[in-house]
């Protein structure tokens, strides 16, 4: 356990000091192998020539995943059904990629709801497309966590993430 912390710590130090991409404000790097990915803002690579975020594998072979993520308080989403949408583009994704969204409860290691789109199995090279995740945010939730992840090698770009409250007629996508 201590070794994992030290390893993650030095990988985070590595990433923070020598990234080719700037980390977008309010976002941070995580994953099981964060050191195997370059993550951050790809200026002008967005849908309309604006910025997009990117995650790109560094080595030829990578077991594990990297994610660019954000966490925030539940705010106006507490007790509501929430749809997260975002645009994503992929290049040579050997395993899979996607957006992910999670609802947490303070003090509990188990999440209240979660979806990482792994059943959708986005892989290979795909053009800009909109994806969505719909989760319930229970009354006892304390924070939201979300981002995009890349499992294995390849590169993804993502942009225009949005959150909106939807009615019960919209089906949830996660667990």
């Amino acid at each position, binding site marked *: 356990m201590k070794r994992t912390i*030290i390893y993650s710590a030095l990988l985070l130090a590595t990433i923070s*000091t*020598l990234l080719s991409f700037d980390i977008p404000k309010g976002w*941070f790097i995580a994953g*099981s192998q964060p050191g195997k990915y370059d993550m951050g803002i790809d200026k002008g690579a*967005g849908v309309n020539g604006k910025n997009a975020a990117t995650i790109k594998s560094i080595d030829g072979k990578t077991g594990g995943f990297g994610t660019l993520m954000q966490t*925030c308080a539940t705010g106006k989403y507490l007790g509501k059904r929430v749809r997260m949408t975002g645009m994503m583009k992929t290049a040579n994704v050997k395993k899979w990629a996607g957006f992910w969204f999670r609802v947490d409860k303070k003090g509990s290691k188990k999440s209240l709801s979660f979806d990482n789109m792994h059943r959708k199995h986005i892989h290979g090279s795909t053009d800009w497309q909109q994806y969505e995740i719909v989760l319930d945010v229970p009354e006892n939730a304390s924070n939201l966590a979300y981002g995009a992840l890349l499992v294995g090698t390849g590169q993804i770009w993502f942009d225009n993430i949005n*959150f909106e409250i939807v009615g019960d007629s919209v089906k949830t996508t996660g667990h």
Partner: protein
Amino acid sequence: MKKSISIALISVAFLLLSLDLPTGWHIAGNQPKKYEMGLDKGAGPNGKNVATIRSIKKKIYGFGTLMQQSLPDKYLGKRVRMTGYMKSVHVDQWAGFWFRVDKADTKETHQSLSFDNMQDRSVRGTTDWKKYEIVLDVPADASSLAYGALLAGTGQIWFDNIDFEIVDNSVPTTGKWLGSLKEPTNLNFEQ
């Protein structure tokens, strides 16, 4: 019997290392093998020990660091100033102290709450002994502190007299605050 074997093994280890590792510190970085790191006995201003990091390759893409991790305990919920003295010779890229506050997120991942590696005010080239500082907030739910000195690229640095003290909120922080937000922010990555 066991004690003499330990002594023998440690002696062998010391023979193989050119520099002793200071107790409680360890080597890291993304190119640790391209550096010699450890105690430079008597190289300090008053003939005392200092730590050093020295490149052993002519060209290095990456960095080495001598670092330590500890529990936050008395610093929880406080603003903390890390100070240290550093000297450099022929640093072709950059060097500095670094300090990071972490929170254990899940079993696999680790979240960084605040961080500063002095990259915006780094040590470069050849500089004399000078005091540097980093000021970070340590949230109440932090799980560990990590800190050390790093050398990116080639050259050599010496560093010594690292200290941590609690300061009040009138002292501005120097690093990046990475804690939890009130609502989803910067979702189009324009910032």
